[in-house]
Every structure is written in C-alpha cells, then in structure tokens.
C-alpha cells in the first residue's frame, strides 16, 4: 500500500502506532468499566472489596442464566442483571460489611488498623465462597455470552480497524462515568455519599445514616460491576475462578488513575490499555502483561497516590 510521498516502511510504522493507540484506548474503556465499581468503594468509601472480580463473574453467569430462559439480546439482560447486582451490593454492605467497617470496629473498641483490615479479610472469604458456589452451580466449563458482535469491527480506514464491542464498551464506560459524576455532584444521595466518605464521624451529626449511604454506594458499585461482568462475558470466555484476574486489572487501573478519582479510572484504564497493546506490538504478546505492570510500578514509584488523586 503506497501513500503519497511516504515510504512504505514509515507508513506501516505509523499504522502500527495508530492501531496500538486506538485499540489500546478501546481496551482502556473496557478496563475502566471493570474498575469503576472498585474505584467507587475503594476510593470513595475506603473499602477494599477483594470479591470485586468475583462479582463481575457472578453478573456474567446471571446473564447466561437469563439468556437460557429468554433468548434476547445480551445487552437487554442488563435490565435484570443490574438491579439484582445492586440488591446484592446493598444487602452485602448493610448486613455484612457495615458491621466490620472502621467505625463499627472502633465503636467495639478495636484499633483503626483492625477496622481497615477486617473488610479485606471478609471480602477475601467472600471471594472464595462465591467462586466455589459458582463452581457448584455451573461446573468449571468455560462459558461465553454469545452475541452477534464478537467478530465485528468498524473500519476507520483501509488499515485501521476498531472492534465494535470494544467501542461499545468504551462508550458505556464514558456514559457510566458521566452519570456517576452527575449523581455524586447533583443529587442528595450523591452528596451524602461524598460527605460520609469525607468524614464518617461528622456525617451522622448532619442527619446522614452512614450505614444506609454506604449500602447505596456498594449497591451502585456492584450494579456497575454487573454491567462490566456482562460486557466481559460477551468478549471472552469465563470460568468460576476467573474473578481475581479482573480484580488485578481493576487494582491496576485504580492505582494508575488515582484513589478517589472517578474519572481517573478512565484515564488509568486508557493508559494501561495503550501500554499493554504497544508493549505487545513491539515486544511480542508475552510483553503485554509485563508492560502493564511496569506502568503500575512506575506510577507507584513516581506518584504513589495515582495520577488524578484528589
């Protein structure tokens, strides 16, 4: 393919970079989607949910079950999956995690350190329980949510393509981020979540029921994880024990993007995605993961609070 004045080598080198940037950015949208829920609980509530990845997988299996009974578009399963995941998150926080939060531990006379540690232990246990429950219910066969878009791509030019699914995921991630931003800034419930995350001791003195507010935040976190789970299930196969893979991706994104920054997760996701794809393009497929981890280490070394920490 010859272009005006450009030698073929330069052209293909540029196309490589352009493809890398483009598909890396799209991959970043997908990563952001996986991470937003964790960024919300980790950054805003300072709750480390080690079962976040497993919750994604739960949502993917939920979609599989729905599709077994009603053959609809995978996207429509969200109408059911999202509310169910919200309810799971709300209940989990209200009846389990609130009683091991920092404040409740302090009230019981435990140290702050113990209070920070206990939700980690509880969600770690949850992660194991969920994975084994899924194994019991669905066996270890790899599943995928079948859809017509798996192999579809949009052609931007003769040599530049973008996966349709990835583009949709990217747009969904941006839409969710904007919605979440507006919710946190402009609604009473959103302000209550921010106030409780700012000072959990003072918020109740303003009439805020922090237990309920945290439950709503966790519900939203898992509702978003539900969207991510269905998207994950549409783009790759999954098994009951795949949760930790996504937890790692989400942590990477949150570390790069910065604690407490919702939009940071989009930028973090995009940077991670581009780094991985470019590393893969130039140093072979095995360099993909290494490239990603190098970026995470670099951020931790230079700006440990993350790029967009508030």
């Amino acid at each position: 393919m010859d272009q005006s004045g450009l030698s073929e080598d330069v052209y293909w080198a540029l196309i490589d970079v352009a493809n890398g940037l483009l598909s890396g950015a799209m991959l970043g949208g997908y990563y952001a989607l996986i991470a937003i829920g964790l960024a919300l609980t980790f950054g805003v509530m300072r709750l480390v949910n080690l079962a976040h990845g497993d919750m994604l997988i739960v949502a993917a299996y939920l979609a599989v079950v729905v599709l077994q009974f009603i053959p609809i578009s995978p996207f429509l399963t969200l109408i059911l999956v999202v509310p169910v995941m919200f309810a799971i998150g709300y209940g989990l926080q209200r009846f389990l995690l609130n009683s091991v939060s920092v404040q409740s531990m302090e009230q019981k006379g435990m140290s702050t350190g113990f209070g920070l540690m206990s939700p980690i232990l509880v969600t770690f246990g949850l992660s194991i329980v969920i994975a084994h429950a899924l194994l019991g219910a669905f066996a270890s066969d790899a599943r995928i949510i079948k859809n017509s878009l798996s192999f579809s791509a949009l052609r931007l030019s003769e040599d530049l393509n973008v996966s349709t699914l990835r583009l949709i995921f990217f747009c969904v991630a941006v839409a969710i981020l904007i919605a979440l931003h507006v919710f946190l800034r402009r609604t009473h419930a959103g302000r209550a979540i921010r106030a409780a995350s700012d000072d959990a001791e003072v918020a109740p003195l303003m009439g805020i029921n922090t237990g309920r507010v945290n439950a709503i935040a966790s519900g939203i976190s898992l509702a978003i994880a539900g969207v991510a789970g269905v998207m994950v299930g549409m783009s790759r196969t999954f098994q009951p024990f795949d949760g930790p893979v996504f937890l790692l991706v989400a942590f990477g994104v949150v570390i790069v993007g910065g604690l407490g920054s919702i939009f940071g997760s989009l930028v973090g996701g995009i940077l991670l995605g581009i780094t991985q794809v470019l590393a893969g393009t130039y140093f072979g497929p095995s360099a993909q993961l290494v490239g990603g981890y190098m970026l995470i280490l670099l951020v931790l070394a230079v700006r440990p609070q993350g790029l967009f920490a508030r």
Partner: protein
Amino acid sequence: MSELLSISRLSKAFGAIRVADRVTLAVAPGEIVGIIGPNGAGKTSLFGLIAGNLRPDEGHIEFDGRDITRLAPQERARAGLARTYQVPKPFTHMTVAENLRVAAVFGAGLEGRDAEDLIDRVLEDTGMRSVRGTLAGRLPLLMRKRHELARALATRPKLLLVDEVAAGLTDHEVNDFIELVLRIRAGGVTILWIEHVMKTMLSATDRLVALNAGRVLASGVPDEVINSAEVRRVYLGA
C-alpha cells in the same frame, strides 16, 4: 419550665479512664450553659455522649421530652441536636454551600427552595456569604470556625453544643464569636458551650457547670461557680 436537655447519672469509661462519672445536669430552653474544667475533665467526651458519637455505659439522656440514650447520632441530629468540634471538621472536598445543603437536607429535613432559603439565611447570619462557593477545605482557620457553626445551624437545631471556638483567637475575634453565639441564642437556639477562655464564659453564659475527672464539681451562677472552693482548688490551682 421543663428542661430541653436532661442528663441523669451518665457514666462512660475507656478502660480505667472515667470520662463521665454519674454526670447529672439539665439545660432549660433558651439558656446558654457554659462547661469548664481542666484538660481531660471529660468536657468533649460529654459532648460525644450527648451527640451520640459515644455510647454511655450507664445513665440516661432526655432531649425535648424524649429518651434519646439509645438513638443513633443521625436520629439525634434530626431531633434537633447539633455539635461543633474544637478543631473544625468541614467536609473538605465539598463547597461551603454543599456542606450546608447536606445539613439542611438530612438534618433539617428540608427540600428545594426551603433548603436554599435556610442556607442563604445561615450564610448571611454567620458572615459567610462571600465564600459560598469555596471548597470548605480551602477556608482559613477563622472561616472554618464560622463554617463549623454555620453547618450546625443548617440542621436547624434546638440545642447547639459548641466546643471551644475561642481557642487561639484574638480578643477582637473572640468578641465577634461571642456576639454570634448570642445572636444564635436570640434566634431561639439553646446553647451548651465548652470554653477555656474564662472571660467568654463569665460574660456570655447564664450558668456554668464545672467538670473534673468526669464528675460535676459545681454548677450554678458563673461567678459563684468560679469562686467556689472546689473549682478554685482543682481548676484554677489556687
């Protein structure tokens, strides 16, 4: 007159340290009651117990004709109890107006126009209109102290617990705060006020309660309390 706040035999201990030891005191509507006592006397802990941040081991708290001993802090806030901190604790990532809005919506139970009207009035009364849109975390100390009072007022309290606003301020600034607190009382809010600056306590309060080691040492007319033998011995070191 029936009491607005009535505390009876309230006790709380952290291990061997008794922060409240059978504390009994009452506050009538419209009063300004000052609380004095040396460091570690249990003044701030008493506020924690009244506001609901701390749970008492024993005793009862009645507020506005209702037993609130077992109520959560947010329920007490909605019932009309507000507390400020000596070191102001604004929601630092929210603007001044947003801080007050949270208080007006969740504390005072107001919506829409009513909430905005209350916020405007409180900002006006506390001299904070000019910093309405400023992030509360960026306020200088003096403004933070005003903000602490303003946000508490936005919950529309019946009883306001004020914890040391005068500490670290100049005489002039202290006088401004005394005037502000008196205006708040004139607006129908009863006040329980911890302060170390004795001048403030003597000039602005109707009654004084002296605490030491979690116990009520003396209570009554400010001059008499200050001059009582027990208070002189423990507090003034005379």
